[in-house]
């Protein structure tokens, strides 16, 4: 097949009506631009919102839940093995929140190849004392280094240095909502009362802002040792082990395994936050729907222009056929025209889409909820660009297919005699 000749003829026909061709290409360019910008922006937002949850939620959390023991003594008795036992007034047992043998568990976890990292944590319910008023709250004792590395703790401390938690003894990073209520500044000392009635003065070294206001009104952070001191426990006392895995999707199965192995409760992220994936999915779906609609509209534009071109070029098609070009040659010429429009328009669209994404990335976006975000988030995943160019080619191919088929079926005799 003589593709060079066909390409040459297609190019000449394209250039002969370059304004029309350009309008068609601009249609594709516009839709691909919007497609790229929209998907980039939407996914940027998705990542941001998912990050709100994912950054701070461990993939698996090991802890001891206060709950009724599922193995009641009557079930262990051989006499009642085959009967259905009804037991009334069961009370929760085991008031200890501590994870037993935590040091050994952490060593075992660190050796597990599926684990990316872990951060021990102590949760302690407290009262913040502001003069005569007590404000209920909670203090988390954390390993600042591990917490920063795995859960981006630093990003959520806009004021003060989180490392001071480790370096300054008896220090606290106050939730910004708590700080507002206590009128506390950096360097102030706040009084905290534990559930057991012990009172401890703590020095404020920073403010914590998560973006979830109710959370910031309650939550504060201290170092592990400060929390242990606060609760009057030994330095092996830990209530939670937060685990980050290498692969998020394995969390449910690994969680089940750990629950068995370490005789503790293990909660995975999918169970804890079932709703967040739904939101991302719907947003992505909407952006794809809009993008594809734009492309389909552009496709109709190309279809129209090619149809018009074929009516205009009836003579040309007839003469090509009379001088020995077959129907399939003619079809290839018009498909070539359509695909050229699609490819050029699509590539330009990618460039413009990328530029528009860069522009969106520069627009200031300040929100109290997200202290580290200063501009609109954009995702530059090359996947969108591949989908964009593939879709532009597919749509233009389909838009060109029927006009090209029509052109290939033109009977030259009718055209030539019709004059």
């Amino acid at each position: 097949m003589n593709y060079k000749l066909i390409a040459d003829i297609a190019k000449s026909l394209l250039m002969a009506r370059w304004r029309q061709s350009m309008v068609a290409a601009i249609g594709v360019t516009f839709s691909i631009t919007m497609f790229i910008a929209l998907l980039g922006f939407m996914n940027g937002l998705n990542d941001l919102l998912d990050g709100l949850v994912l950054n701070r939620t461990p993939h698996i959390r090991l802890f001891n839940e206060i709950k009724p023991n599922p193995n009641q003594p009557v079930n262990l008795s051989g006499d009642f093995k085959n009967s259905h036992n009804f037991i009334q007034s069961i009370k929760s047992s085991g008031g200890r929140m501590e994870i037993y043998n935590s040091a050994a568990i952490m060593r075992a976890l660190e050796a597990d190849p599926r684990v990316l990292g872990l951060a021990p944590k102590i949760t302690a319910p407290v009262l913040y004392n502001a003069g005569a008023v007590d404000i209920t709250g909670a203090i988390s004792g954390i390993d600042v280094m591990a917490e920063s590395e795995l859960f981006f703790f630093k990003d959520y401390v806009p004021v003060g240095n989180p490392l001071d938690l480790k370096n300054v003894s008896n220090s606290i990073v106050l939730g910004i909502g708590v700080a507002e209520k206590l009128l506390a500044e950096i360097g102030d000392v706040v009084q905290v009362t534990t559930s057991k009635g012990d009172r401890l003065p703590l020095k404020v070294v920073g403010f914590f802002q998560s973006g979830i206001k109710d959370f910031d009104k309650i939550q504060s952070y201290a170092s592990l040792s400060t929390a242990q001191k606060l609760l009057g426990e030994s330095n092996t006392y830990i209530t939670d082990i937060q685990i980050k895995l290498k692969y998020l999707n394995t969390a449910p199965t690994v969680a089940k395994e750990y629950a068995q192995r370490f005789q503790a409760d293990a909660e995975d992220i999918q169970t804890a936050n079932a709703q967040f994936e739904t939101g991302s999915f719907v947003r992505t779906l909407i952006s794809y729907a809009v993008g594809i609609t734009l492309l389909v509209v552009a496709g109709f534009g190309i279809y129209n222009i090619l149809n018009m071109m074929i009516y205009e070029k009836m003579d040309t098609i007839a003469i090509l056929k009379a001088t020995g070009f077959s129907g399939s040659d003619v079809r290839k010429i018009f498909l070539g025209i359509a695909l050229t429009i699609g490819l050029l328009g699509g590539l330009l669209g990618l460039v413009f889409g990328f530029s528009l994404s860069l522009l969106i990335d520069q627009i200031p976006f300040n929100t109290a909820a997200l202290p580290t975000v200063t501009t609109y988030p954009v995702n530059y995943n090359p996947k969108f660009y591949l989908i964009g160019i593939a879709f532009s080619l597919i749509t233009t191919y389909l838009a060109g297919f029927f006009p090209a088929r029509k052109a290939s079926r033109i009977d030259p005799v009718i055209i030539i005699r019709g004059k």
Partner: protein
Amino acid sequence: MAQIVLQSKGISKYFKDPVTVKVLKDIDFSINQGEFVAVTGKSGCGKSTLLYILSTMDTDYEGELWIDGALMGGKSEGELARIRNEKIGFVFQFHYLLNEFTVLKNVMLPGLKLQKYPEAEVEHRAMERLKTLGMGDLALKKANQLSGGEKQRVAIARALINEPIIIMGDEPTGNLDKKNSDLVFDIFKQLSEEFKQTLLIVTHDQSFASNMNRIIEMEDGRIINA
């Protein structure tokens, strides 16, 4: 005995819309290599219809058409296109050049399609033919910048590019003034005499036809005088 280039055996053609009319009735004739044939007749006698069947563009007919010893019936559209490309040259009443291309490229296109020679060789041959027809200077002009007579000469050059075994013309001078008509006729005459080119020209111009060495006269879909 001269070689038979084109043969029609009992070709009939019907127009079916709106009522069935038999426009060609059992056409039998053959054309030998080197003949300069005119098909004449009154308007509506079916001479153009016959030409389009002979040209392989119209495939809706009864009977047999042989070109260069091969039967055309039953061939695919692609095969017929190839035969038109290789063995038949066309000159139409309305020159039908492609306005998107230069004169030279118009002449080259069927040659490029055939791919018998490389592009440079096709270009050289096209240029030679244009020069023979006195059109060398206009080779790089766009087709739509030419006058009617010039266009028709370019169309003849295009018909010649693949050294066809027969050139067919449908009223090639019908749209030209006397001077250009004569010019085109002289070219045909020259092709016939100097190069022994076979030509089949449909015309209703009696003076034109009378100068040819064979006249096929048609009336009501029949050949009345071959």
